[in-house]
C-alpha cells in the first residue's frame, strides 16, 4: 500500500465532505430569511441519506463489475468482501485501500444530490425531498457514475470520455436533474412578481469559499494519488476559478453596471464547475480560457430562467448544467497530452448528451411519481408563511421585537411524544 497516496485520498475525501455544508451556506444565503434553514437542510441531509445508501449498495452499483456497460453488479452490497486490507490500483499504478476510494466517491454522490436542492428552494416538503434524493441517487447517480468512472459504456468509448472529476457525472447530472424536478414542482409563489432578494450575502461568500477550498480535494483528489497530474489539477482549479470570477464580473459590469458580490461568488462556482471535467488534461492557459468563458457564459445563462419562465430558484441549471457542458466540451479541443481533437470532441458530446437525455427522462418520471403519490410541494400557506417554521419547527434568526415576546416560556419537552406537534405533512 502506498501511504502517501492513501493519505492524500483520505484528506481529499474530507475536503469534499466540506463542500456540502459549504454549498448549503452558499444556497442558504441566497434565499429569504424565512426559508434559510430549509435550504441548509436540503443540502445537509444528503450527508445522511446518500452516505448510508452508498455503503448499502451505491458503491456496488457504481464500481463492482459491469452489467452491459449500464451499471455495476450487486457483488459488493453492504461493502461485502471489502476489508481494511483490500487494495486497488490508482492511476499511477500504486495501491490504495478500496475503502479510501469508496469514501472519496461516496462524498461525490453526496454533493451531487445536494446540488439539486438550490433549484427547489422554499417550496418542497422536506420528507418528499428526502425520498426524492434517495431514489435519484439510486437510479440516476450510481449508474451514471458507473458509466463514466466504473468501467461503463462511456469509459469504453474510443476515445474514452474525459471526465476527470465529474463534469458529466456530477455537474451536468445535477443540473439536468434540477431542471427536470423544477418542471414538475413548478414555480415559487410570486415568482417574477415578489422580490426574492438574497437575505445574507456574507453567508453566500463564506459558502463559496468553503466550496472553493473543498474543490481542491474534489479535483486534485480525483487523481487518487500524488503526482504531476495532481499538481496540474490543483493549479488549474485555482486558475480557472479566479479567471471565471473575473469573467462573470466583467460581463456583469457591462450589462448591469456593478461588480456584485453574488456575481463574484457565482463566477467562482461556474469556474470550479467548468474546470472539473478537464483540469487534468489542459495546461494553465487552457484552464484560464475555460474559466473566463464559463464565467461570462454562465452569467448570461442565469437570465434565461426569466425568459423561459421556469423557476430554477438559485440557478443550478445556469451554473452547473451550463458550466458542466462548457467544461466537458471545451476539453475536447483544449486537451493536451495528445488527447484533443475532433474524435475526442465527439466522445465528449456523446457523454454530455447521454447524461442529459437519461437523467432528464428518469428524473422527470421520479419527480412526477412523487408528486402524484406523497406530493412534492409544500402547501401554499407553508410556502408563503415560511417553510422553516412549517417543515422544521424552527426559524433561522430570532428578531425578537415586541410582537414575538408574547410566547410563554414553558417546559419545552412534551409530556408524551404523541403530544408533540406534527411538523412534517
Amino acid at each position, binding site marked *: 500500500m502506498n501511504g502517501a497516496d492513501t493519505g492524500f485520498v483520505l484528506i481529499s475525501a474530507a475536503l469534499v465532505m466540506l463542500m456540502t455544508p459549504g454549498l448549503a451556506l452558499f444556497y442558504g444565503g441566497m434565499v429569504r430569511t424565512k426559508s434559510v434553514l430549509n435550504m441548509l437542510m436540503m443540502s445537509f441531509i444528503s450527508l445522511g441519506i446518500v452516505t448510508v445508501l452508498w455503503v448499502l449498495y451505491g458503491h456496488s452499483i457504481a464500481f463492482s463489475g459491469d452489467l452491459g456497460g449500464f451499471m455495476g453488479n450487486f457483488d459488493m452490497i453492504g461493502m461485502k468482501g471489502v476489508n481494511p486490507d483490500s487494495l486497488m490500483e490508482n492511476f499511477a499504478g500504486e495501491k490504495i485501500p478500496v475503502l479510501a476510494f469508496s469514501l472519496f466517491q461516496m462524498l461525490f454522490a453526496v454533493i451531487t444530490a445536494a446540488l439539486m436542492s438550490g433549484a427547489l428552494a422554499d417550496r418542497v416538503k422536506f420528507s418528499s425531498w428526502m425520498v426524492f434524493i434517495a431514489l435519484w441517487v439510486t437510479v440516476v447517480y450510481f449508474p451514471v457514475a458507473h458509466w463514466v468512472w466504473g468501467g461503463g459504456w462511456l469509459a469504453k468509448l474510443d476515445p474514452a470520455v474525459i471526465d476527470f472529476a465529474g463534469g458529466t457525472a456530477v455537474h451536468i447530472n445535477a443540473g439536468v436533474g434540477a431542471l427536470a424536478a423544477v418542471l414538475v414542482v413548478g414555480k415559487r409563489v410570486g415568482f417574477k412578481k415578489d422580490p426574492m432578494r438574497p437575505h445574507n450575502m456574507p453567508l453566500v461568500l463564506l459558502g463559496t469559499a468553503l466550496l472553493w477550498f473543498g474543490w481542491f480535494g474534489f479535483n486534485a483528489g480525483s487523481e487518487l494519488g500524488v503526482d504531476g497530474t495532481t499538481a496540474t489539477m490543483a493549479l488549474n482549479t485555482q486558475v480557472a476559478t479566479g479567471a471565471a470570477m473575473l469573467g462573470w464580473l466583467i460581463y456583469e459590469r457591462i450589462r448591469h453596471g456593478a461588480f*456584485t458580490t*453574488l456575481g463574484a461568488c457565482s463566477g467562482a462556482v461556474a469556474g470550479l464547475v467548468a474546470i472539473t471535467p478537464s483540469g487534468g488534461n489542459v495546461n494553465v492557459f487552457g484552464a484560464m480560457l475555460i474559466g473566463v468563458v464559463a464565467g461570462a457564459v454562465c452569467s448570461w445563462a442565469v437570465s434565461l430562467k426569466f425568459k423561459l419562465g421556469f423557476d430554477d430558484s438559485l*440557478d443550478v441549471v445556469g451554473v452547473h448544467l451550463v458550466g458542466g457542458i462548457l467544461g466537458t466540451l471545451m476539453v475536447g479541443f483544449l486537451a493536451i497530452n495528445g488527447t484533443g481533437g475532433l474524435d475526442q470532441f465527439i466522445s465528449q458530446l456523446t457523454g454530455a448528451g447521454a447524461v442529459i437525455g437519461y437523467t432528464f427522462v428518469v428524473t422527470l418520471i421520479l419527480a412526477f411519481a412523487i408528486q402524484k403519490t406523497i406530493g412534492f410541494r409544500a402547501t401554499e400557506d407553508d410556502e408563503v408563511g415560511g417553510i422553516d417554521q412549517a417543515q422544521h419547527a424552527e426559524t433561522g434568526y430570532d428578531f425578537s421585537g415586541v410582537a414575538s415576546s408574547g410566547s410563554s416560556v414553558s417546559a419545552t419537552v412534551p409530556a408524551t411524544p404523541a403530544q408533540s406537534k406534527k411538523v412534517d405533512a
Partner: protein
Amino acid sequence: MKLITAVVKPHRLDEIKEALQAFGVQGLTVTEASGYGRQRGHTEVYRGAEYTVDLVPKIRIEVLVEDDDAEQLVDVVVKAARTGKIGDGKVWAVPVETAVRVRTGERGPDAL
C-alpha cells in the same frame, strides 16, 4: 407646546443630538423608520435580476418644546440634518394639547 418631528438620514443622528443638547433640549425620542420621498429608493442587482427597494432606512426624532422655541428649533434640526444630497428628509412641527410627566404628574410646560 409643539411637537417637532424630523424624519432624516440615520447617520445624522449624532449631529442632531448634539445640536439639540447645545440648544438646551432635555430629552428626545428616536425611532427607526423607513420611507421614501421624491427620489424613491434604490435598485439592487442579484445575478442580473433587479430589485427595486422603495423604502429606505430613516430615523424619526421627536422632541416636545415650548411654543416660543419651536421655530428656532426646527431650524437647528434642519441645519444639523442637512447633507445637501437627495433624501435628507423632512422636519415639521405640530401643536400639542397636553403633556404629562408620568413620574410626577406635572402638566404642560413643566412636564418638558
